[in-house]
C-alpha cells in the first residue's frame, strides 16, 4: 500500500508539472461540453439532438433559422415573398455563399436538399416538415420558388429546423462523417468517443465569427462533467447533467450558471386506450395525486416551471392550467372510488434513461402509492422505449419530455402512443392549420390547451429547464433552447 501511495504521488507530481504549461493562446478557442456524442453529423438523416447541438448554425444553415429567442429570422434566404393565397413562397437567397469545400452555393442546392428530404426513400427524421411541399423550382441561381399543396402557417418555422438545412449534392455521400455546409465553422476532426473539432471558415459569407476553434467534448458521466467544469477542462456546458451541483457553481465567481427554458414539456403519459386509464376519472385522479413541487425539488433540484397542459410557459399563448390539476390526494382517492377502484390498482411505469424520468419516476411512484395506485417501475433504454412504448403502445404509464417546439398537434395524431381520441381536439387542429389571423390562431391554441387539460390526457409535470454552466468570461451563449443548438457564431471571451 505504501509503495502504491508513493507511486501515485510521483505520478501526481509528474502530472502537476506538465499541467503548468497550459495551452491558453489568445482566447479564441472554446471547449464545449455535451452529454451525448452525436451518432453521426448529418442532421438530415438522424433524430439525435446531439447532431444539431454540434452542427446547427455552426456548420449547416437553412433558408430560415431560429435566433436565440426562438424567433424565425432569415438565414440563407435573405428575404421572401408569399403569394396572396399562401401557396407560393419565393425565397431570395444570399449571394457570395460558399460551401466549406469551396464550391459555390446556389438555388440548385436548395432544390436538391428539399427534394431529397421529401423523396420516397428519404431518411429524414422530420419528413413531416416537408409534407406540404408540392414542388421546388429554381427561378435563377439566387431565387427559389416553393409551391405548397395547401396553405401552411408554419412553413417558415418548419424550414428553420435543423432537419431542413441546405447541403451540397457533391458532399452528400460523406455528410455523416465529414459534414460540409455553408456556416461560419468548418468541420476539422472527430475523435470518436471523445470530441469533435471545428475551425473558423475563412470563406464565410456573413459576419466572421470571433472564435477560431470550437471543440465539442462528450462527457456523459455527471460527476465527470462536474469535475471537468471545475478543472477548466471544459469552458462551457450548455446542458449540464448534474443539476444537484449547480449551487456550487453559483457560489464560485469563476462560473456563471445559465438557466433558461427549453421546448420540453415533461409528462407522465397515460395510455388512454387501456384500462384503467381509458376512464377519465382515473386520469383525473392521477393528476391530483401528483405533487409537481416535490417532483421539481426532488428530481430537478428546484429547476423547472410547473405546467398544466402541453404548452411552453414562455409562449405568449400559454394558459396556466396548473390549478385545474392541483395536488389533492383526498380528491384523488374520491375520484378513484367513483371510478370503481376504491382500493387502487397496479400498473407499470416505464422510465427512459434521462435523470428527469428516472428520478421523477421514483418520486411519482411514491406519490401514486399514497392514493393506492401501485406503479411498478421498469427502467428501459431509449431503443426499448421507442419500440415498446412509442411504437407498440405497450405501457400503462411513462415519463418523457416532448422537446419539439410547438408540438401540441401530437394530441390530434391517429395512433399516437397516448391513444387519445378526440374529435373536438382534431377539429381545433384542422381550424388552426387553415387560419392565418394571429388573434384567431392564439384563440385556437388556447382552446387546444384547455381541451387536453379538461380531458386529463396526461399528467402534465413541468417544462424542462435548460441548465448550463459556463466560464464567467464567455459571452454570447444561448440562454434558452428554442431548438437543439450550440450556436457559436457570436460567442467570444471578454478578457
Amino acid at each position, binding site marked *: 500500500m505504501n509503495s502504491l501511495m508513493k507511486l501515485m504521488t510521483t505520478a501526481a507530481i509528474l502530472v502537476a508539472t506538465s499541467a503548468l504549461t497550459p495551452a491558453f493562446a489568445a482566447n479564441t478557442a472554446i471547449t464545449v461540453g455535451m452529454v451525448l456524442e452525436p451518432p453521426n453529423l448529418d442532421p438530415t438523416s438522424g433524430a439525435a439532438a446531439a447532431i444539431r447541438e454540434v452542427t446547427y448554425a455552426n456548420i449547416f444553415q437553412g433558408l430560415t433559422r431560429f435566433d436565440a429567442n426562438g424567433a424565425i429570422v432569415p438565414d440563407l434566404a435573405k428575404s421572401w415573398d408569399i403569394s396572396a393565397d399562401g401557396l407560393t413562397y419565393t425565397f431570395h437567397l444570399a449571394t457570395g455563399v460558399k460551401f466549406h469545400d469551396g464550391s459555390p452555393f446556389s438555388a440548385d442546392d436548395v432544390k436538391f436538399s428539399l427534394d431529397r428530404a421529401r423523396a420516397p426513400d428519404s431518411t429524414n427524421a422530420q419528413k413531416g416538415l416537408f409534407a406540404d411541399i408540392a414542388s421546388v423550382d429554381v427561378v435563377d441561381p439566387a431565387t427559389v420558388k416553393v409551391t405548397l399543396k395547401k396553405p401552411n402557417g408554419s412553413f417558415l418555422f418548419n424550414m428553420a429546423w435543423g432537419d431542413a438545412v441546405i447541403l451540397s449534392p457533391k458532399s452528400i455521400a460523406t455528410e455523416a462523417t465529414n459534414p460540409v455546409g455553408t456556416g461560419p465553422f468548418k468541420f476539422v476532426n472527430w475523435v470518436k468517443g471523445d470530441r469533435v473539432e471545428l475551425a473558423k471558415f475563412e470563406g464565410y459569407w456573413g459576419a466572421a465569427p470571433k472564435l477560431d476553434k470550437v471543440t465539442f467534448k462528450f462527457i456523459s458521466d455527471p460527476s465527470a462533467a462536474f469535475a471537468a467544469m471545475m478543472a477548466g477542462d471544459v469552458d462551457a456546458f450548455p446542458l449540464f447533467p448534474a443539476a444537484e451541483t449547480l449551487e456550487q457553481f453559483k457560489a464560485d465567481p469563476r462560473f456563471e450558471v445559465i438557466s433558461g427554458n427549453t421546448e420540453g414539456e415533461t409528462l407522465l403519459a397515460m395510455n388512454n386506450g387501456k384500462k384503467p386509464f381509458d376512464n377519465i376519472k382515473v386520469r383525473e385522479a392521477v393528476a391530483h395525486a401528483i405533487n409537481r413541487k416535490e417532483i421539481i425539488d426532488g428530481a430537478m433540484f428546484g429547476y423547472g416551471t410547473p405546467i398544466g397542459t402541453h404548452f411552453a410557459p414562455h409562449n405568449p399563448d400559454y394558459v396556466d392550467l396548473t390549478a385545474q390539476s392541483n395536488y389533492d390526494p383526498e380528491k384523488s382517492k374520491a375520484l378513484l372510488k367513483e371510478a370503481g377502484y376504491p382500493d387502487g390498482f397496479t400498473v407499470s411505469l416505464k422510465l427512459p434513461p434521462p435523470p428527469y424520468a428516472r428520478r421523477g419516476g421514483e418520486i411519482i411512484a*411514491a406519490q401514486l402509492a399514497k392514493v393506492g395506485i401501485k406503479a411498478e417501475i421498469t427502467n428501459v433504454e431509449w431503443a426499448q422505449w421507442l419500440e415498446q412504448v412509442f411504437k407498440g403502445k405497450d405501457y400503462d404509464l411513462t415519463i418523457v419530455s416532448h422537446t419539439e417546439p410547438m408540438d401540441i398537434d401530437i394530441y390530434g395524431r391517429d395512433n399516437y402512443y397516448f391513444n387519445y381520441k378526440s374529435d373536438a381536439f382534431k377539429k381545433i387542429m384542422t381550424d388552426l392549420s387553415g387560419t392565418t389571423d394571429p388573434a384567431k390562431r392564439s384563440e385556437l391554441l388556447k382552446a387546444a390547451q384547455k381541451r387536453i387539460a379538461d380531458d386529463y390526457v396526461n399528467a402534465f409535470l413541468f417544462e424542462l429547464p435548460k441548465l448550463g454552466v459556463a466560464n464567467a468570461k464567455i459571452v454570447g451563449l444561448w440562454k434558452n433552447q428554442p431548438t437543439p443548438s450550440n450556436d457559436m457564431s457570436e460567442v467570444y471571451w471578454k478578457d
Partner: protein
Amino acid sequence: MSVGTLPEVKRGLVGAAFQSKSFALGFAVTAVFILAALLSLIWTPYDATALAVSDKLKAPSGLHWFGTDHFGRDIFSMIMVGARTSIAVAFVAVGIGIAAGVPLGLWAAAKQGSLVDEIIMRANDLVFAFPALLIAILITAVFGPSAINAIIAIGIFNIPVFARLARGAALTLWTREYIFAARVAGKGAVRISAEHILPNIMNLLIVQGTIQFSLGILADAALSYVGLGAQPPTPSWGRMLADAQTMISLAPHMALFPGAAIVLTVLGLNLMGDGLRDLFDPKLRRSRS
C-alpha cells in the same frame, strides 16, 4: 488438489472451523449482514422506500445513522434491505451454478475422453470465453432489467466453474480403488457418481460456493450499478452507488456506506472461504501451522 474424505471432515467440523481465525471473523461479518437482511423483513429504522424530499442529502446523524440520500430516504434502512437483494441474487446464482454445473461435471468425468466429455468441456470453455459483464448486459437488454435476470446472468457464468471443479475432482476419485470395487460390484456410473463421488467432493464445492457467492455479490453490485439489477424502489447497493456518483462532492456519505457494505460482505465471505479451504485441505493446513 487433494480431497479430504468425508469421515475425516465430519469429525468436529464446526469446532475446527471456528478455531480458524479467518473463518471466525468472516463468519461473524457475513452473519451480521445476513441478520440485517433478515431483520429488514420485519423492521428497519425507517421505511426504505419512503421519500422525504425536504430531508434530502442529510449527513449522518443520530436521527439517520448513515445519513439520507437525494430523495431523503434513510441510507441505513436502504442498506439493510439492499443486503437482502444482494444476498438473495448471489445465493440463487450460486445455486444455479451448482445445480447445473455439478451434474455436468460428474457426467463428463464418468465418460472421460468421450464425445460427451469433449462437448461439455468445450462448451465450458466457450462460456468462459465470453466477457461476462457484457453478456450480462446483453441478457438484461433482451429480457429487461430485473433481479431475476441478474440472477440468470450471473448464474450462467457459475455453471462452468462448478462443472470444471466437479470434473477435475471426480477424475482423481475415479482412479481410486473403492470406486473400482464399486464398478466391479456392478454399480452404474450414475450411482457411483451420486453415492461415492459427490459426497467426497462436497467440501470442495462448499469452498468454491463461498467464493462464487462473494463474486456474485460483486457482480450484482456491478450490474445494478449500470442499472440492470433490481429495479427501484427496491434498494440495491449497486444502484445506491450509481445514484451517489453524481453527488459525490456534495454528499460523499451516499457513496461511502453502500460501498463499505459491499466490501465487508465480500470480505466476510472470502475469509470464510479461506478458512474452510484450510480446514478441508490437509496439505495447506500443514503448511500454514
